[in-house]
């Protein structure tokens, strides 16, 4: 039961084997929360270029996927929010990166559809807005909907808290976000995990993402996990 899984990779380079120029890559995380930090650096080290990056924010504050943007290895970005990702603002304004901005719910539902064998679906989101430009609309039960299509990728790079050898994953709190959905939509999913455990370490009822969606696992014990906005309140006086 505890024999080494064939999904385990010892190095980041091995985990990213076959990632070529021009690949479409989904990267998990909401802003900098839940980023696969070592895999992001690894793509840079591997020298892949001309990438299509599919990620909700595609970096922020010069960190995370902003590394790819600064290195000039991204040709196209599909995201929902730019915010204060100055690198993306600059490259978009300069015409150096093509940017497709999609409603967040549509972005993730397109991934879910890709993973679930649904080639297209109707959604109310974006009707009557620029998002509807060039898209088919249809009235169903008296309401107008847009047709949106499945969004696939060559690779999904995600971060999880715990994995077992088969690749069953658990995520911590809101670091889950897009990661399990991206894993279903990519041809090859690589999970960067804090803890790689033997099969049996995660109860069947406690699995967030079943292992059949994960092709490779790499254990990375150290992460920066940067804060974007460290908001707190004063601790009530504990006495003493």
């Amino acid at each position: 039961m505890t024999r080494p899984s064939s999904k385990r990779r010892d190095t980041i380079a091995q985990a990213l084997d076959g990632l070529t120029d021009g690949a479409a890559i989904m990267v998990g995380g909401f802003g900098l929360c839940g980023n696969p930090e070592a895999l992001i650096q690894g793509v840079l080290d591997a020298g892949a270029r001309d990438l299509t990056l599919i990620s909700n924010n595609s970096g922020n504050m010069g960190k995370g996927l902003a590394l790819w943007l600064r290195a000039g290895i991204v040709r196209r970005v599909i995201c929902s929010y730019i915010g204060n990702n100055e690198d993306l603002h600059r490259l978009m304004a300069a015409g150096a990166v093509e940017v497709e901005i999609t409603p967040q719910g549509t972005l993730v539902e397109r991934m879910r559809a890709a993973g679930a064998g649904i080639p297209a679906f109707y959604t109310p989101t974006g009707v009557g807005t620029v998002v509807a430009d060039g898209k088919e609309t249809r009235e169903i039960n008296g309401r107008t909907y847009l047709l949106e299509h499945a969004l696939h990728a060559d690779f999904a790079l995600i971060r999880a808290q715990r994995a077992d050898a088969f690749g069953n994953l658990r995520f911590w709190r809101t670091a889950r976000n897009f990661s399990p959905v991206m894993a279903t939509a990519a041809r090859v999913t690589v999970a960067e995990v804090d803890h790689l455990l033997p099969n049996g370490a995660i109860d069947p009822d406690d699995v967030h993402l079943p292992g059949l969606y994960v092709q490779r696992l790499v254990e990375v014990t150290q992460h920066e996990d940067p804060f974007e906005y460290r908001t707190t309140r004063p601790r009530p006086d504990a006495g003493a």
Partner: protein
Amino acid sequence: MTFSKQDIARRAAQEIPPGSVVNLGIGLPTLVADFIPPGSDVWLHSENGLLGMGPFPFEGDEDPQLINAGKQTVTVLPGGSTFDSAASFAMIRGGHVDLAILGAMQVSQHGDLANWAIPGGRVMGIGGAMDLASGARRILVLTTHTTKDNEPKLVAACDYPLTAVRAVARVITDLAVLDCTPEGFRLVELAPDVSLQQLRQATGAPILTP
């Protein structure tokens, strides 16, 4: 005397029925959380995958992997749950979020909402705004009544890029509480010492009185 930001947030909190699921947008709507009465069984939804969002953590307890949609560190209350983004937006799109309280750049009398891009301005992105505006059961907008240049934000028809059409039910501004109707904004409540004339002058659409 106009409504302060705090007044707007306090007034907005009165719109939240006990037991409901509410999504608070970034900015002014975030302040509403401070005015929800304890014990009212209100569950805050954050579209990055959290239901039952609690207050900011105590100093030293902040967790970079527990944030809200504004990327601020938060906490999770007993009875809260985490889930992936597809599940989170299924809740929104499927009408399981009872109320979304959002900011606005423009709102039309018909309830059209513009809150994601200024023409010619820098595009910040759409994020969850379009999903929330078209998916939540009820949309409440909190905004200043006019721009910094004194242009009305409540208009007959939006000329900013739209977020959703026929979406907003009610608007709370520094001047008044108003409902969207095809004929104009119907006055619900005036801020203290604000006159109807003052309100009409600051609004780019008809004001209907009860």
